């Protein structure tokens, strides 16, 4: 044991010296270790490693085969043995050595990469892709890949990508008849399921910043058919737009900033838009109360809103607003407050070069065409044009809550507001934290 520690120390000194470029010193440490324990598996390993570097796989193999005999539970020895066997073109033996290493350490990155590249060279592309996929999944998101592995991992990623495309072709060929059979049936969810399986897209889910109601589906855009009352509001779109244009003729002063949060909260993604009219709002209903003056100014809009089933939570909702996004302005990705509520967009003025994304779906605003979306799924908007964009936004209930559940949610939200003495979770500290 004492000897072992001494040998390990000498080998470590050798490797440190070598890393610092002191080749002679490294040699000295290694020779010392060799003199004291010529058959120590790690000494053999280090000598073999140098032989491999010097282009002598046959010599390395002999030493490593001896080393693994004495220390069969040490994965790095098996990996180096596999490297030697690769140099000798002994694919089958190489695979056996790599498998030994992986049986000892199933998540050993070097062993996985070597196994994958061996599978590739043996023509087993699908198996290679699976192994590469395992290796790539070991790297935590955001971690910088060590430079020594970058090339292999990039190659692995290409291999996985190519395999995903091959799976896609293979599966799609099988789906051909079914797709024909269900040509008139929406199977969008299946397509997205496939997209995730093939690593073409990721799943976004509800992340309400305040009240999280469980067991609800995460659906970015709802089926317009399920909201037939929107027909009446869409039918009034031209009138609503005319009233909005009239409001805007007063200039930006008629608008309030959409984002109005106190300083000193960790909400710096809103720094540019906070208290700014670059994202302005004109309230028709404000947190549960009709805005009499504004509604009087927009009588046709007020009339159209009679068809609107409201997210009625006294003190908090519903709101109905004109939302004006200024030219060259971007709303950063964010998640809404309550997943018991959905939002309606009725686009009114849509210049070109606007973008709206909810979760994995991008959609284009079309004037007069309403949609319903879940704002607790990460979403963002931008207006890259030279003129403002305007949409009407309405709060409605998620259709998945029963009437009884709605009553409870109303009570809890109102009580929370009373407890904290604030009427606005939407703009308060709870948001985004």
């Amino acid at each position, binding site marked *: 044991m004492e000897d072992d520690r001494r040998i390990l120390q000498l080998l470590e000194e050798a490797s440190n010296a070598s890393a610092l470029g002191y080749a002679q010193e490294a040699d000295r440490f290694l020779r010392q270790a060799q003199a004291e324990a010529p058959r120590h598996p790690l000494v053999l390993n280090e000598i073999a490693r140098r032989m491999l570097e010097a282009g002598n796989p046959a010599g390395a193999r002999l030493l490593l085969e001896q080393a693994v005999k004495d220390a069969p539970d040490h994965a790095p020895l098996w990996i180096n043995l596999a490297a030697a066997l690769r140099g000798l073109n002994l694919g089958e033996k190489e695979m056996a050595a790599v498998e030994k290493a992986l049986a000892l350490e199933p998540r050993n990155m070097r062993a996985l990469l070597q196994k994958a590249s061996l599978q590739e060279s043996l023509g087993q592309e699908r198996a290679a892709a699976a192994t590469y996929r395992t290796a790539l999944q070991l790297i935590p998101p955001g971690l910088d890949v060590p430079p020594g592995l970058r090339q292999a991992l990039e190659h692995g990623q290409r291999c996985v990508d190519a395999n995903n495309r091959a799976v896609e072709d293979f599966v799609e060929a099988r*789906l051909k008849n079914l797709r024909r059979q269900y040509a008139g049936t929406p199977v969008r969810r299946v397509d997205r399921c496939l997209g995730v399986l093939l690593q073409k897209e990721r799943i976004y889910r509800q992340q309400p910043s305040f009240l999280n109601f469980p067991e609800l589906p995460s659906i970015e855009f709802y089926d317009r058919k399920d909201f037939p009352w929107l027909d009446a509001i869409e039918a009034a779109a031209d009138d609503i737009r005319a009233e909005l244009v009239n409001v805007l003729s007063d200039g930006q002063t008629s608008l309030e900033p959409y984002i109005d949060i106190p300083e*000193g*909260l960790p909400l710096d993604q809103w720094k540019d838009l906070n208290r700014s009219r670059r994202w302005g709002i004109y309230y028709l209903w404000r947190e549960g109360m009709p805005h009499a003056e504004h509604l009087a100014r927009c009588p046709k809009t007020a009339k159209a809103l009679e068809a609107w089933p409201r997210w009625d939570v006294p003190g908090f909702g519903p709101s109905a607003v004109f939302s004006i996004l200024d030219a060259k302005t971007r709303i950063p990705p964010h998640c809404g407050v309550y997943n018991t509520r959905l939002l309606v967009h009725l686009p009114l003025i849509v210049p070109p070069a606007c973008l709206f994304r909810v979760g994995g779906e991008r959609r284009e605003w079309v004037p007069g065409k309403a949609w319903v979306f879940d704002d607790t799924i990460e979403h963002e908007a931008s207006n890259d044009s030279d003129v403002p964009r305007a949409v009407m936004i309405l709060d409605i209930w998620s259709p998945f809550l029963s009437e*009884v*559940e709605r009553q409870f949610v109303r009570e809890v939200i109102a009580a929370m507001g009373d407890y904290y003495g604030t009427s606005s979770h939407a703009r308060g500290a709870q948001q985004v934290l």
Partner: protein
Amino acid sequence: MNTVTESQLQGLMEVVDRAMQTGNNAEADQAIAKARALAPDHPGVLNVAGMRALALGDAKTARSLLERAAELDPATPILWVNVALAQRELKDETAERDALEKALALAPRYFPALLHKARLLERQGKGKAAATMYHAFLSCLPRDADRPPALQEAIAHAQRALQENDRALEAFLEPRVQAARTRHRGESLERFEACLEALLGKRSLYRPEPTFMLFPGLPAIEFLDRTHYPWLDEFDAAADEIRREALSAFSEAAGDFVPYISKPAGAPVDQWLELNNSKRWSTYFLMKNGKGIDEHLARCPRTAALLKAAPLCEIANHAPTAFFSVLAPRTRIPPHTGVTNTRFIVHLPLVVPPGCMYRVGAEKRPWREGNAWVFDDTFEHEAINDSDQPRIVLIFDVWNCFLTPAERDLVAAVTAGVHDFNEGESPFRQGG
């Protein structure tokens, strides 16, 4: 010696640090004096000198030094936090608050400033605002930061403050919610109660995390409503007969019960070390990956007839699988998640000794003999048999009730297609 280099000052500041750590105050003071003589208007030096004065209890001197430092280098948040610390000692809460707001205006997620602001609010008796700020502090902590004992203490205190606030909020909400509960007695309120518990920090929210295939847009529900599967009544009604068949197989064909977990060599075993290749969790397959095991079905004719008539999840070569699952005494199935949320799992408990526990996501439910349930096994779930007797459950696959017939058809084709492409084992049953 007119020009002082930054590295010279840095060196002196390091001397101060080391001297303070070893309790050599005289040496620290000497180094500070030297640095101040060399660079009287250097913010870093002023900061160190100010913090030293604060440690010595001279808050007034500390404040003037620290304020000077912050004025000279107003864009560095920590200097403002240190000013706030001096103001705290001088009991000037307005100035303390102002200094913290300056730090936060520079860096809204700077956790030391959030912490001190929360503490200030707490000292002022503003418990609710303090709780909000402690929440901000906890949310802005760097993930893998070094957490010295003082910070750990602050985190623990912040968590306690949040819990206390949650309890106060709960007490505040209770009468109002209770009134509503009374109005709706007899109605199904489980989802709402879960929502409220999550709001009050009493419940974590879990979600499906399938290892193979995630189907989007579906409700995420741990235990499904039995009304989606009315035909399960027949299984409940036949539980005694099914149990007799299971027990008879168990006593007469024990050799046909195989370990449920059997990882291929080289695959990560992880939490399955104890159960891998072990009969402590064993199964008697009636159907496996879509194929009936004739011999076993013949031995259990009543169970076989019920399974045959039931609308199971059918995917050629993959599903259904149906089996008696035997969990040995004093055995625990560790938390794990299933393969795909396109399929749900039925449990019909047959033999349930006392001391068993079952959890899916945030919900624990006791097995009750003869009462089948349907659950989504892509939520993290675990099972425990702490008794001295085996626990036996009939398990089989059904479709997720929220898939349309077209979606089922396509999911079946995709599953079979991926399997054929990979020329491997069914992704639906990966030994666990």
